[in-house]
């Protein structure tokens, strides 16, 4: 992990002190509610349905065991004994009291954690691939670049009051697992003539107006990264719309100006600052890189899975887990392992304090105490020796953290929904549970193959339903909960690193299309089942995934089957399609 130097630590502590003062001024009436609102949001504090909600940053999803133990401590002492991993590599606590928040933040600061810029109209936590630093297909290790962006964006004096929130994602691998196409800025590492740089997509995003980002700059050399970001943010800060919050994201500016004109304006600004003080030097990159403690891998390990194969032969549960939750690692003899937070009946992404502590112990016992948080709301054990996989599985299984569904339909990505969130129009957790129950036969789940199912309780799209192969959106109609279904969305499509192919957009991300009128909550599992039946009937082989069939045949056949099913015809609601 990255180890704070004095400056890093001082800044976090000074922000804690500032926030403590702001909270005290608010509580004594010296700061109005309206003034305090934005200041607390910039420190991750929302006022929610039941109590304040505190969102703690896990910068670029990297977490170590002692931090996880601290999160467990916070969950027990100030929350109800659990936390919720969001889709942006953050963790949320739903029950802290406002008066306690400064103390929570002070505790977090002792393990190099904070809540800075986890909300508000500022540059948010930069996200990346959940296999960052581990994946065999990396062009660069994005962690170093994410840290450079973290430093640059943290407490940025010019960009603290943007028209709207601003999210940056970085992918360092051939396969884009960071969903760069659906972020305000998506950075895809590329090498051109041996020089490392980034391909820059701007204006992607989900929410009310889902748009795939536009390729604004095919190549920005590594040394120019921060000044290019600065120029982009400056153009947005000056010209982004502030009259209508629904049109304030950078995607609207890019669209209104056209990507070409937007790109020109950024370039004009960039030319003026590109050789200024924020140009990235090799020395600085080395300095940041040297502050990471990288695992000391045993390089004598060889790839020998014989014993694992033997253990798996007699154990179907283990065999299934190996297949779905164990991932290739760049170092021979190691694997990355997904700890599933998607057991049926548990809100997706929820984790208890006991589980946090157990996982912290496990991460030290089987690896180097390093973890990643995925935007799919699971945890990743970073560096597990392959020869220990069986005993690891035994431990995880007892903890109910070994659900073998990663990449499959029941690995549902969902926001907390109307049970917790005051923005939501509809609940999401019970819907996710109902789907998981409907698909409780694992053989059938594997038969369906790779499938992303995403669920959002409202158009703010925290469950990223637009990029789900199947997406479910909760909508409100006359005070009732209804659910709209989209299919054909995806967060990536693999990346061609030939920079001449400027037609590639957003690493292949696509926005799902609405199949038709919305459904009642209890109909949803049957609707999903029907979509799956259509897929299974139409696929040309096991290798053709659900998303591939939608792409090949369009939404027509799916729509036809769903809306001609007499059971589903009961009472579909004719809602207008919301802004797709």
């Amino acid at each position, binding site marked *: 992990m990255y180890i704070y130097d*004095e*400056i890093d630590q*001082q*800044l976090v502590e*000074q*922000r804690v*002190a*500032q926030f403590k003062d*702001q909270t005290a001024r608010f509580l004594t009436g*010296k700061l*109005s509610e309206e*003034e305090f609102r*934005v*200041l607390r949001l910039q420190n991750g504090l929302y006022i929610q349905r039941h109590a304040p909600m505190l969102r703690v940053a896990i910068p670029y999803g990297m977490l170590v065991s002692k931090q996880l133990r601290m999160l467990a401590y916070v969950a027990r002492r100030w929350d109800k004994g659990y936390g919720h991993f969001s889709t942006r590599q953050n963790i949320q606590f739903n029950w802290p009291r406002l008066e306690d928040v400064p103390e929570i933040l002070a505790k977090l600061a002792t393990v190099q954690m904070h809540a800075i810029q986890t909300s508000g*109209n500022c540059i948010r936590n930069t996200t990346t691939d959940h296999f960052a630093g581990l994946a065999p297909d990396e062009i660069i290790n994005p962690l170093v670049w994410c840290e450079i962006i973290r*430093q*640059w964006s*943290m*407490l*940025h*004096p*010019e*960009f*603290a*009051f*943007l028209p709207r929130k601003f999210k940056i994602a970085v992918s360092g691998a051939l396969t884009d697992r960071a969903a760069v196409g659906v972020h305000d800025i998506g950075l895809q590492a590329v090498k051109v003539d041996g020089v490392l740089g980034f391909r820059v997509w701007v204006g992607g995003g989900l929410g009310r107006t889902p748009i795939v980002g536009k390729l604004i700059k095919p190549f920005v050399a590594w040394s120019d990264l921060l000044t290019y970001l*600065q120029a982009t943010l*400056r153009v947005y*800060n*000056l010209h982004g719309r*502030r009259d209508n919050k629904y049109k304030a994201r950078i995607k609207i500016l890019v669209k209104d100006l056209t990507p070409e004109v937007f790109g020109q304006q950024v370039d004009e600004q960039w030319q*003026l*600052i590109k050789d*200024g*003080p*924020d140009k990235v030097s090799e020395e600085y990159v080395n300095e940041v890189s040297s502050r990471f403690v990288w695992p000391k891998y045993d390089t004598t390990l060889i790839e020998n899975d014989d014993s694992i194969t033997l253990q798996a032969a007699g154990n179907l549960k283990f065999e299934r887990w190996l297949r779905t939750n164990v991932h290739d690692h760049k170092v021979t003899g190691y694997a990355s392992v997904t700890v599933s937070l998607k057991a049926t009946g548990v809100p997706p992404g929820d984790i208890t304090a006991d589980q946090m502590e157990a996982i912290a112990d496990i991460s030290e016992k089987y690896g180097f105490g390093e973890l990643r948080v995925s935007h799919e709301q699971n945890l990743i054990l970073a560096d597990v020796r392959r020869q220990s996989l069986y005993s690891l599985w035994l431990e995880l299984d007892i903890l109910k953290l070994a659900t073998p569904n990663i990449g499959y339909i029941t690995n549902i990505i969902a926001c907390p929904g109307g049970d917790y969130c005051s923005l939501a129009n509809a609940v999401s957790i019970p819907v996710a549970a109902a789907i998981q129950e409907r698909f409780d036969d694992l053989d059938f789940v594997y038969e369906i193959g790779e499938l992303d199912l995403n669920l959002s309780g409202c158009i703010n799209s925290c469950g990223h339903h637009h990029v789900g192969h199947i997406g479910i959106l909760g909508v409100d109609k006359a005070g009732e909960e209804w659910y709209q279904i989209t299919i054909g969305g995806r967060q990536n499509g693999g990346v061609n690193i030939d920079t001449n192919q400027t037609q590639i957009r957003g690493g292949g991300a696509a926005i799902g299309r609405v199949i038709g009128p919305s459904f009642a909550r209890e109909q949803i599992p049957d609707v999903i089942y029907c979509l799956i039946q259509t897929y299974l009937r139409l696929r040309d082989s096991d290798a053709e995934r659900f998303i591939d069939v939608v792409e090949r045949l369009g939404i027509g056949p799916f729509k036809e089957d769903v809306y001609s099913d007499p059971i589903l015809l009961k009472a579909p609601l004719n809602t207008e399609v919301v802004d797709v």
Partner: protein
Amino acid sequence: MSNSPRLIRHGELEDDLWRLHDITLTTLPPDEAYWMVTLDCWKVNQDSMSQRIHSVAILVPAHADSKDFLPIGVSSINALAITFIAIDFPNYKDGRGFSLAQILRTQLGWLGELRAVGDVLIDTIHYLARCGFDSFLVKEGHDPELALKSFETFTVHYQKSYPKPVKINSSQVSDF
């Protein structure tokens, strides 16, 4: 309390003696001290400014375009006859003024006093100072003494191209 000085300038609190000339007029106010005029008014009259004994201050709206400051073909602001430039924050959440200040400081050659007016909070002064503002009219209800202390809220920073907040702009001090 409301009568105590609210203007932070040269690292100290002082009374704000400036008054805004009728914003509907593009004619200049009388040749007296402490008149602030709108950017539009200044643009119309900038050629005749040098004839005044008392220079004016310019009030710039948040939405101003940096190009408004320069006649075509000129690359930096003619500082003559301008006491200071004030950027208005209609609402502290409107961050355009931060970028505008940076452009004035780093691209338009404005070295003179740059004042933040309007919705200026204890909590925004630190960022404002780093973006190039060096005087601040603290909004009513915010303790100006606390605002003064906010220069030290953060003693270290990441962004290299934005200086540490300084209470005293060295280019002004040399004028004393």
